[in-house]
């Protein structure tokens, strides 16, 4: 499946990137295609285009702060989790997204 994700955390220096890495690593291992946007203290990186999102089967929003450009996800199926959950149990998060 094609997955897009956004990660973001309160200080934007640690959990944002740990969650992104965990989702990317696990999704690829499970045979999915994934692109993860990070909204951390360096701003938005690896930004998802509308085309990326429209082509995706699901969006994982692993955020515990309000993120920028939320309107991009209006037309796609999405699940919302905390970054901690993505870090501790990425398999579970991805399974939930693909179900």
């Amino acid at each position, binding site marked *: 499946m094609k997955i897009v994700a956004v990660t973001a955390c*309160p200080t934007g220096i640690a959990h944002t990137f*740990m969650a992104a890495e965990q989702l990317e*690593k696990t999704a690829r291992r499970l045979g999915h295609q994934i692109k993860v946007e990070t909204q951390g203290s360096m701003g938005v990186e690896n930004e998802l285009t509308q085309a990326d999102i429209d082509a995706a089967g699901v969006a994982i929003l692993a955020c515990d702060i309000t993120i920028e450009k939320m309107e991009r996800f209006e037309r796609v199926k999405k699940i919302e989790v905390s970054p901690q959950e993505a*870090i501790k149990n990425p398999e579970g998060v991805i399974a939930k997204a693909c179900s």
Partner: protein
Amino acid sequence: MPTEFSFNFPLPNGLHARPASAFEEAARPFACEITFINDRTDAQASVKSVLGMVSTGTLPGDPCRIVFDGADEASAREELRRFVAEKLPHCDDPPLESIKVPGEISLPPCLRDAGAVLWKAKSAAPGIGIGRIVRLSDAIVPDDRGAGATVDAPQERECLLNALLALDRTYAERMKEITERVALGLLQAHRAMARDPALKAWLLAAISGRNCTATQAVLAAQDHFAGVFTASASTLLRERALDVRDVCRQLIRELKGSPPGPPVVLTRDSIVTAEGLTPSDLLGLDRRFLKGLALAKIGAASHTVILARSFGIPCVIDIADFPVARWEGQDAIVDGELGLLAVGLTADARRYYEMEQWRLNARHVRAQRLTALPGQTADGARLEIASNISRPDEAAPAIAAGAESIGLFRTEMLFMDRNEAPGEEEQYQAYSRALRDAGGRTVIIRTLDIGGDKPVAWLKLPAEQNPMLGSRGARLYPRIESLIRTQIRALLRASVNGQLRVMIPMIAGVAEARWVKRVFDEERARLVEQGTRLDSVPLGAMVEIPSAAFELNALCHELDFFSIGSNDLIHYFTATDRGTSTALDDPLAPAFLRLLKKIVDDSHAASRWIGLCGEMGGNVQCLPLLVGLGLDEISVPIASVAAIKDRLAPLMAAECRRLLTDALDCTTADEVRTLMQQREPRRPIPLFAEEFVVLDSRAATKAEAIKTLCDTLYVTGRTDSPRQIEDAIWKREAVYSTGFGYGCAIPHCKTGAVAANSLCILRSQEPIPWGDDGASASVIILLALRDNDEAAEHLKIISRLARLLMHETFRENLISVKTPAAMTAFLAEQIGLSASKNPASAVLNLEV
């Protein structure tokens, strides 16, 4: 006819007992009436009365005048003028505000949860002290004779006069036993108060006028004079009432024939608690056992506190309603960091304070190690950091403060404040002491630089219209030839006691240098003939007259080394004078920088050593340009040595040279200033270093681990307020725990309390419970980032690290590396950065 001069009071703490006693000392030799007038308060007093002077309520910046009336008024005026210009500014400590006193801070969790009884107070002197509580009762000596008894006035009078004489002797004795500068100054001030004619007159008038005993008179005088202070507008002067009480109490002791002994005998490590404690009481306590002070009614600016601070004794004040009877004899801790008295100590509390003592000791040890390093830039360019001194006994403190040598020993002080020149033997002893105390390091001793702004009364030199441009320095030497020959003989003889160099002041050209050199060689030959053992002594000169700068080529044939006297040089160069400050005498003016460049380049072209010993050397703002000039040495006041070394270490000499080249192309000092603001020629501060790794930590709780990491940032100089970082870390932990499983945690925060973005790692011996869900961690990575810091490179490193933490092999390596060095190398390799060794402190640079 009376004569006067005016000035603005310079000292940040106002006119209190210590500066007043220095005034009195300067005025004592003169017979004329010398009156101090404060034009703001309209108060006036005799300069010979310490109590009177202090009662004028003089605050920093007050417009003041000194009026002289009497036979020797002219010389008194000269002497006091010089005193005000040169000595007075050094008569006090820096303003109290600049001494760090921790503000309101929440209790660190490891102390809050330790279960000890914490008594809130205010910190007055930093540090942690542990000992048994000893109570000192406030022993005001009462008059044991009841009121109404018949008083034998002549007898009381005699008792009083004897007691005053005895007290003067007691002070003299105690001053012999004490070596610390602050304590000595204080005793001197108290002694001056005790022999103040105003006090004596007041006491005698009270005995005859009020029909009271000597003791009653002293108690009344105490109330009277202390009352004057208490009415002062300045907190600081109000707190000086304690000094009056102290002196009066000592006087009563003398009246009772009981010389001052210790107020209580300490036999083991002790915390002394008291309502009030006078400076004399403190000096009487055995400092081997005095580990802390907890005082109720003593001000933060009192001399008791100033003494405690100078002795390094932790002290808290304003301790209200402490039930001392309940805790007397039990162990307690004075916490001068948080401003607490801790009693009912538990094992956890003791553990917390052991960590605190480690934190303070480790920072001290590190600061001392850095102080001992040679002056050097980050790219390895040497710049010797020396110190200027005025007295032989300053050599040892200068070296202890980190000076690599003595760049200027001004000998004028030996010749001033006296009625005749010091003899050869006295000078020999003084120079030898400085040379010995410098312990083999170079001491540059400057021959007599008098005249101009440094008049010497007994030389009886004719008055000049413009002394700054008149007979001063070396040009005066032919007229005082025997004096100079004596000094040169004393210097040559002293040469066997250390590494001596002799420097001539105020050279305008080659002729003067040759004159001194001839005298120097003649005296040397004479001494050798007499069989005196001498070492070779390089002879050099100050470059402080512009003409000398343009005769350097010729001077290099005559002399061995040079040192730039930037103060006089800039004034002679720009036709400005020292008293009136204008924008013209700006050391950053490009014309002046070009002059300095010429002096340094010409000296080096002739292979001559060149230093700088003026005020410009101690100005941290100028330092990059001085590095760019390529000077061999700068010599600065003792108090600036550590700060200058600290600023020098991260500078890059190559960039400093480019900065100087561009500054020389500027047209105004303001342009240079702007240029320097835009370009900071320093090495970037690394995110991480080997000293930020703590392995095998015994931290057992999350709170202890976080404290250890924050303290590590304190010890390594990254922060002055580790508590503030700790607070910020706990605020972040409160959102949700940063333990993310896999045995790791990554506590982090953004804070202004850290000097630079920092990454710190702790590995504990046992797993530490960390998460809300019971997860534990044994690798703790703490990130303290600056608010609004735009160091994107650091953020990139951290995001890369955060991603790597998700990989098992990376985590296994973090757990298994054996040493901090291996940890550092591993991280450098994994995050894809090259490790660069910093020559000064072996800091690994994690810059991309």
